[in-house]
């Protein structure tokens, strides 16, 4: 269960709902800090703090426009994180599929009260 430090930062960044919402917004195209702050009841400095965490985690970067300083999604890191999460989701889903099979077996052994 060892993982790289870089992914560590990614998951810490993803563990916050506001930051996930920012990523979701950025997935539809780059946006300035002001544009990102608008849908949230948050000040620009508060949003900037979240952006810094996302930037440090390698999930976003700054676009070329020096005036607007738009942020854009860095899909590679997110894809890595999701691939990793997906592995563990599959692990637990594997458990539950085994449980499905076990329950089917138990159902056939159980007396049928309603018949």
């Amino acid at each position, binding site marked *: *269960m060892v*993982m790289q430090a870089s*992914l*560590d930062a990614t*998951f*810490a960044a*993803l*563990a916050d*709902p506001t930051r*996930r919402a920012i*990523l*979701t917004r950025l*997935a*539809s195209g780059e946006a300035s800090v002001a544009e990102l702050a608008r849908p949230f009841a948050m000040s620009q400095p508060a949003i900037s703090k979240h952006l810094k965490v996302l930037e440090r985690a390698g999930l976003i970067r700054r676009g070329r426009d020096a005036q607007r300083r738009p942020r854009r*999604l860095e*899909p*590679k890191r*997110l*894809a890595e994180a*999701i691939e*990793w*999460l*997906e*592995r*563990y*989701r*599959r*692990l*637990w*889903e*594997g*458990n*539950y599929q*085994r*449980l*499905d*099979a*076990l*329950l*089917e077996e*138990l*159902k056939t052994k*159980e007396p049928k009260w309603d018949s």
Partner: protein
Amino acid sequence: MGQLKVTMPSDREIAMTRVFDAPRTLVFDAHTKPELVKRWLLGPPGWTMPVCEIDLRVGGKYRWVWRSDNDGSTMGIGGVYREIVAPERLVTTERFDEAWYAGEGLNTLVLVEKGGRTTLTQTMRYESKEARDAVLKSGMEKGVEASYDRLVELLASMPAAR
């Protein structure tokens, strides 16, 4: 059966929900009878559960150990039953042998039956946000899914990473 959903109801919790096509008495048994637990709660392929001790009473202990057939490594967990309301509710503490997060976890299992199907909700509460995040980061929380669902969908529709 149903789709596994994972949410974060608060900053100290992780919750999983899934529907099973069976009455809740059976789902409850599958979580509390060692001979049944050992058959499904196994994790990745190649792992078995050689130790599965359950003393199902309030204050009673449980102890589970998994073992990898590949390299013989083991992982153990234990705790105490805090609340037992068969077949609908089970509250247990959890602590891993190797303390990779601070403090204890508190797991609440709730089973709701409707029309012969059971909705399982397992909520894991940690002593701090940091502990929960450690669990999130480690992936030991058994699959963080739903919160990332939308992102997964978005990613799938996005051009490949450069």
